[in-house]
């Protein structure tokens, strides 16, 4: 899977590239409009992460250019401006998703994974992690080929864990993924704890090993060891 990260802030660009490389993606980065347009025209990517405010041009214009060239890349916009107009304009121009800065890297990974899955409908849509198998379009989970019934939140949580496997995930990032802006409303950490506990219990009962590790003071990590 080949990704292009277009972001003018070097340290942010690097963080994104590092994180996604770690997720087994092949990443290239561009930090200017000119650089980006050259790369887009020469190479084929599976997904493009696009910052719409670039020092030498507007990302929306770049988006138009990409779509005008009949490119089939999935495009996810990252913007500092939480402006409805930009969001609507971006989606209308053919972007697949829109993420407002600051965002959590695991969240970006989940969104990219969703876009790639949608783009490659003909390919495999199964997510595998050891004995756990997730059929994403069908929203079905099997453990050792036996169906596992999960609530919607538990399903979302498992998907988030598997896509971001082997990474320490903060409670904040998980809560924001599950509940969005509503995460501020209640003491979400207790709430999250309940969901994680239930998911772990169901996985164990279905015969899976315990992959959910609690990381003290931070959150969780989904991994073999």
């Amino acid at each position: 899977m080949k990704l292009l990260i277009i972001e003018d802030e070097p340290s942010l660009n690097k963080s994104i590239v590092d994180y996604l490389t770690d997720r087994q993606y092949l990443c290239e980065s561009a930090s200017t409009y000119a650089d980006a347009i050259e790369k887009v025209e020469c190479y084929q990517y599976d997904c493009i992460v696009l910052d719409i405010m670039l020092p030498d041009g507007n990302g929306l214009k770049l988006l138009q250019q990409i779509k005008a060239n009949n490119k089939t890349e999935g495009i996810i916009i990252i913007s500092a401006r939480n402006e409805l107009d930009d969001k609507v304009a971006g989606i209308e121009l053919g972007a697949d998703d829109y993420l407002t800065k600051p965002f959590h890297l695991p969240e970006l990974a989940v969104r990219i994974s969703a876009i790639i899955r949608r783009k490659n409908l003909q390919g495999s849509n199964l997510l595998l992690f050891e004995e756990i198998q997730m059929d994403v379009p069908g929203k079905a989970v099997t453990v050792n080929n036996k169906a596992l019934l999960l609530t919607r939140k538990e399903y979302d949580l498992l998907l988030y864990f598997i896509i971001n496997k082997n990474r320490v995930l903060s409670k904040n990032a998980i809560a924001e993924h599950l509940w969005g802006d509503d995460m501020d409303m209640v003491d979400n950490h207790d709430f999250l704890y309940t969901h994680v506990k239930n998911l772990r219990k169901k996985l164990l009962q279905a015969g899976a090993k315990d992959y959910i590790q609690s990381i003290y003071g931070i959150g969780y990590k989904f991994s073999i060891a």
Partner: protein
Amino acid sequence: MKLFTKYNRINILASILIFLGGCIAFYFVMDHVLVKQLDESLETEQAEMAQYAKQHGNLPEIVNTNDQQVYVKEISQPIATAVYASSKTFNKNEQKKELMRQLVFGLSVSSKHYQITVNKSQEETEDLLKLIVLIAAVMVAFILLAGYIINRMVLKRLWQPFYSSMHTMANYQLQQPLHLPATTIEEFNLLNSTMNSMVARVEQDYQVLKEFTGNAAHEMQTPLAVISTNTESLMQDEAVLLHHHATISTIEEAAKRLSRLNQSLLLLTKIENRRFELDENVQWDVLVKQRLSELGRLATSQSLHITVHTVPVTTVFHQQLADILISNLLGNAIRYNMEGGSLNIELNEKELVIANTSPIPALDSTKIFNRFYRHPETKAEGNGLGLSIVHQLCNRAGYTLNYHYTGKEHVFTIRF
């Protein structure tokens, strides 16, 4: 009071005073002139009698008429001076008292001395005077009336450009062209051109502000993104995590709060700058139920007792803003609620009432909608802007937002 009314009042008052003064002066001048005329005719009478006496050596025959009576009295000493006087005297001919002008003078004929009194009626003079004053007064009244009517009719038309400019200004909204038509009146042209240039300046400032808020957002959100992504990278290092998990989670938390604060401030600025058009139909009952079912799931951890009474209510608002409004109010009602507390929601055509229990005592209703106001006992997780946003949204839509405390529940009421 209208400028015209005020001006008219002063104008009419001054006119009346001037005309009144004029009439009084006119009266006295006329009176003086007419009496003088009468005196002259009395003097002529005196001269004629003296002439006659000189020529004939005796007094002329006295013929009294309505207008003039002459009385002759023989006296021992001659009188040197002639005295004029006005007095009310009995007129034998008319059988009534009337105002007379009198001349008393001495005349010596053939070594006899006479005191001669000539009376002339002043009544006609008075009548004439009254008539003249009356005509003057009526004229004055007519002039005032005509002036008033003309002013009223003409001024209304003259001020027309002013009112049309005001009407245009009242309907003016930022980022729309302002057309104030040219007029033939210099003052109105000045007003219109001043307004036009002022609006152009405001537009320019607004443009700068808009760019500033957009840029400020960008400039702040990107460093925040750098902080939060780097914090996430730092989390992956087990050794670092072991010793610094508290520090890392504090940084993450702070970056999150700063980002929310920034977004809330931007939202407030945008609402205040009227960046949103309220032109969508919002079904409040649907929205309330939907938000409540989403938030309610979070609320179950506190085992709240929730009661909802709604009827279908639709008003013209903004879908996304309505969502923010309801989320903020319901969010507060849930977040600041207590274990086993209650949340009551009542929605009808006139108002939306959200009442909730809370361990926090009554809030200061004068400060509650201020930015960054937080009750001292409030947990620090809110950014103190939620109610400001709700308040601004209500202002924008012309709804009234009220808060009161019943002693047990905090009650927020929105009147549509």
